[in-house]
């Protein structure tokens, strides 16, 4: 079964996205090392289908087609009502839903400021498959 793990990071204010302006270089280094070893682990377990990190939400645009086929509306930023933004995702191939939960929990606790776990919300969604085979 395939699941998409969507990692939501705390959005910016004075502290910047992820509150990263308060992080020390060591905090940041630890965070990158954590993500590296997480990805390595997924790869060597044969569970990684795909993963992407997304550019800063400051570069995001929201596009919406308008009624009657006029010019589409393009607005800056991610959805303004959300406090968190999608920072990246993994697609994993696992045997059980519990394994997907365990992976999500692990990445949720990635280290942040002062090495403390970020406890980010990670949305877990099953990826739909093709039509059932005739067997």
């Amino acid at each position, binding site marked *: 079964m395939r699941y998409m793990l969507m990692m939501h990071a705390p959005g910016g204010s004075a502290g910047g996205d992820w509150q990263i302006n308060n992080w*020390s270089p060591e905090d940041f280094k630890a965070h990158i090392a954590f993500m590296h070893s997480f990805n390595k682990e997924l790869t060597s377990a044969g569970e990684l289908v795909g993963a992407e990190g997304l550019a800063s939400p400051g570069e995001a645009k929201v596009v919406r087609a308008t009624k009657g086929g006029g010019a589409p509306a393009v607005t800056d930023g991610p959805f303004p009502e959300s406090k968190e933004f999608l920072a990246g995702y993994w697609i994993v191939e696992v045997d059980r839903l519990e394994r997907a939960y365990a992976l999500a929990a692990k990445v949720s606790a990635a280290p942040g400021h002062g090495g403390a776990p970020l406890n980010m919300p990670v949305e877990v969604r099953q990826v739909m498959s093709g039509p059932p085979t005739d067997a």
Partner: protein
Amino acid sequence: MAGSSERSAADHALHLLRELAPQVLGVVARRHGDFAAAEDAVQEAVIAAAEQWPVAGIPTNPRGWLYQVSMRRMNDHLRAEMARRRREDVVATDRFANEPFVPPPDADLGVDEDDTLVLLFMCCHPALTPPSAIALTLRAVGGLTTAEIANAFLVPEATMAQRISRAKSNIKASNVPFSMPTDTERAERVRAVLHVLYLIFNEGYASSVGADLQRTDLSNEAIRLTRAVHRLLPSDGEVLGLLALMLLTDARRAARTDADGQLIPLDEQDRTLWDDHLIAEGIALVSEALSKGSVGAYQLQAAIAAIHDEAARVEDTDWPQIFALYGVLEQMSDNPMVALNRAIAAAMAKGPAVGLELLTALDTDARMRGHYRLDAVRAHLLEMSGDHERAVIHYRAAAERTMSIPERNYLTTKAARLAANQRGSTTNGEE
């Protein structure tokens, strides 16, 4: 060990295929005049060879083998085409219909070095967009399979197949004959070829997508193809310049990333890791190019790379000369990235204030608006000048804007380090 000898047999077969595929394509395309169909036929033959050779062994005449299989595919294609035409009640008079198409395996195929050049000219046709030209060049001239190219550019194979087939139909529609362009066209086409090779190298050296900073498969391929062009046009100064630039840049590859794949900038690299052989070869090439008297953009960039590579320690770098060379380059090409690099050289040669002054001209350049490199360079120069508070702001802005994960990590770390120092010094001040 069985595993490693199998691997090396497969590697050897692939290596050979990449060498032979464009030669065979050149002959098939010249005989039939239909580049698109010939390319399909040779690609099918290459895929068949890649499956069979590592297992059954490399045939005694691998080029003849590839040629025969390609011609068989070509013939199938022509037969199908003629049947279609017959159905449409068109008289089919095809000059290949009565020709015995399979030569004896040891026949001289009339492989002509110029064919490779014609192929390159065709693939780098100005009518094609750069992504199409790159894909087609890698497949037709580089002998890479669609799957390999797709993998190198991190796109699905179906997407890459579509891109290549679109490129071929564009070529077909443009009615370019499979022949050497006229002398006047030729210089223009060589420029287009070099640009495509440069883009392939850059994509390999500084990946614009994904988490990996370098895709050595692509930069190696670009170097191999540029060497081939250099063999065909040995006295062309810009070909020499581009090859030198690639070698002098590639020489630093091992020092450019750390064990975790993180970016190490030029001034922090362990220079003992640089490849002396590549540097020596690159310097010889650029000296040869410059001795010819013609000065082109690739030669100038190669000369700058050579000055960096000649400095055993970062503080030995001859910045005044680099500054002067960027000045010449800026006159030749209206490229804001050159202006940006010239500002860095100015800062190193004459102090950060001079560099920052040069940057202000770029603030109004629409091409640089919102580009992370402008913020990154400004941050660096501000840091040099001691204005750490503003440097942090620009490092952070650059980190937000870059699309490369290693660059973002590098810039974020720079900002974090300066900010931490500042916090440290403020606390000390209060005590």
